[in-house]
């Protein structure tokens, strides 16, 4: 899939003859080279994050906070997840329009709980944003998506979802190729009172243990 757009890839304001903007595609590569991040929408909430250039990620998060606060000030209610995703996507897209700005080198998985229930969105460096049942960005995203598709998300609670996500991350991790990894998970669901928080330590440990056992069972075949 990888092609070099010699001459047409020097600026984000240049189209190639076959209608591609290479700078945006290179920005996506920055995301693909980072650790895998998964987000899934379960029955009662979201389990998820940012993958890619950390500094870019921080900018996006800051912008998201600012949009959310300004919406609350003007409209008097918390920002709906859909609205926040659209605003973020607009902002990310903005940075692909001018030659004096570079595209964001990070993909954002946005999980929220508003008055319409839990929702999951993903924003890519190109500015594309869709609503998902399950999403993955980063190195193992293809394999992660395959694994996610096997899950029955609409019947799963967030507690169960946490275990499943841990299993997938562990499964994807290639001992030989990748460096050692640290698993971090956060969720927003009924159990966390619709507030976003890090998955509680005891549940995290339970998930890690279950994931390790699942891996051993696989290896044992």
């Amino acid at each position, binding site marked *: 899939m990888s092609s070099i757009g010699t001459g047409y890839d020097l600026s984000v304001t240049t189209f190639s003859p076959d209608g591609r903007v290479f700078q945006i595609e290179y920005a996506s590569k920055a995301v693909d080279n980072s650790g895998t991040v998964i987000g899934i929408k379960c029955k009662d909430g979201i389990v998820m994050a940012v993958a890619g250039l950390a500094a870019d990620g921080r900018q996006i998060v800051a912008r998201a906070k600012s949009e959310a606060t300004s919406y609350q000030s*003007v*409209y*008097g*209610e918390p920002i*709906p997840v*859909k*609205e926040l995703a*659209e605003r973020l996507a607009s902002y990310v897209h903005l940075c692909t329009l001018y030659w004096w700005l570079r595209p964001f080198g990070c993909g954002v998985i946005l999980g929220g709980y508003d*008055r319409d229930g839990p929702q999951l969105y993903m924003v890519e460096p190109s500015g594309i944003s869709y609503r998902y049942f399950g999403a993955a960005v980063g190195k193992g995203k293809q394999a992660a998506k395959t694994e996610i598709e096997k899950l029955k998300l609409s019947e799963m609670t967030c507690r169960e979802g946490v275990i499943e996500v841990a299993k997938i991350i562990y499964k994807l991790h290639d001992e030989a190729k990748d460096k050692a990894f640290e698993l971090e998970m956060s969720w927003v669901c009924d159990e966390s009172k619709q507030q976003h928080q890090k998955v509680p330590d005891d549940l995290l440990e339970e998930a890690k243990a279950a994931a390790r056992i699942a891996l051993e069972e696989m290896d044992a075949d």
Partner: protein
Amino acid sequence: MDLEMNLNASHSMGTTIIGVTYNGGVVLGADSRTSTGMYVANRASDKITQLTDNVYVCRSGSAADSQIVSDYIRYFLHQHTIQLGQSATSKVAANLIRLLSYNNKNMLETGLIVGGWDKYEGGKIYAIPLGGTLIEQPFAIGGSGSSYLYGFFDQAWKEGMTKDEAEQFVVKAVSLAIARDGASGGVVRTVIINSEGVTRNFYPSDKLQLWHEELEPQNSLLDLLNSSSPEPMNI
């Protein structure tokens, strides 16, 4: 006695406006008098203005100020509805009005009562008086005529009325205020908003109940000359 009327004075709506919640929605009510000093510029005004399909506002104070504020908010809410992909909530409408009212408090003179129904909160009433405070209440009264209604509401208001009870209550209240407040008069208009939609009603003056010392309406005192009553001046 002031016989010099300035017919070019700014229009003010003396007004009585009311908003009440009931079991299932809200009822908004208002009189219909717009005055320019002592002259009644419009005796059949409509002070209950639409902001969106499901949110209406009762206007009082300066007619111009309240109209321009309503126009701005209708515009903002229209854009908001497009972005959101669904109807705006009454809380959002009230908040937008509050921001305009508060930030321009030195220039505006308008008291508003916002009432609407949305699928998240049901029927809600928000009062936004002169300074730009925003307060959510089970019922709200405003305008010059409201002074005469505080005692009435204290005694007669109850939670969870039916739609018809609530509407009759509002009509009675506006009618009482019209009887005592010189700056309120004309007809009583009501707007009922609930999950099924919006209903507008109209109560002409002769359909309203008469209060203490109010006389029956008469076409002309000259009719007495043609009547067969032996005591024509015995009123």
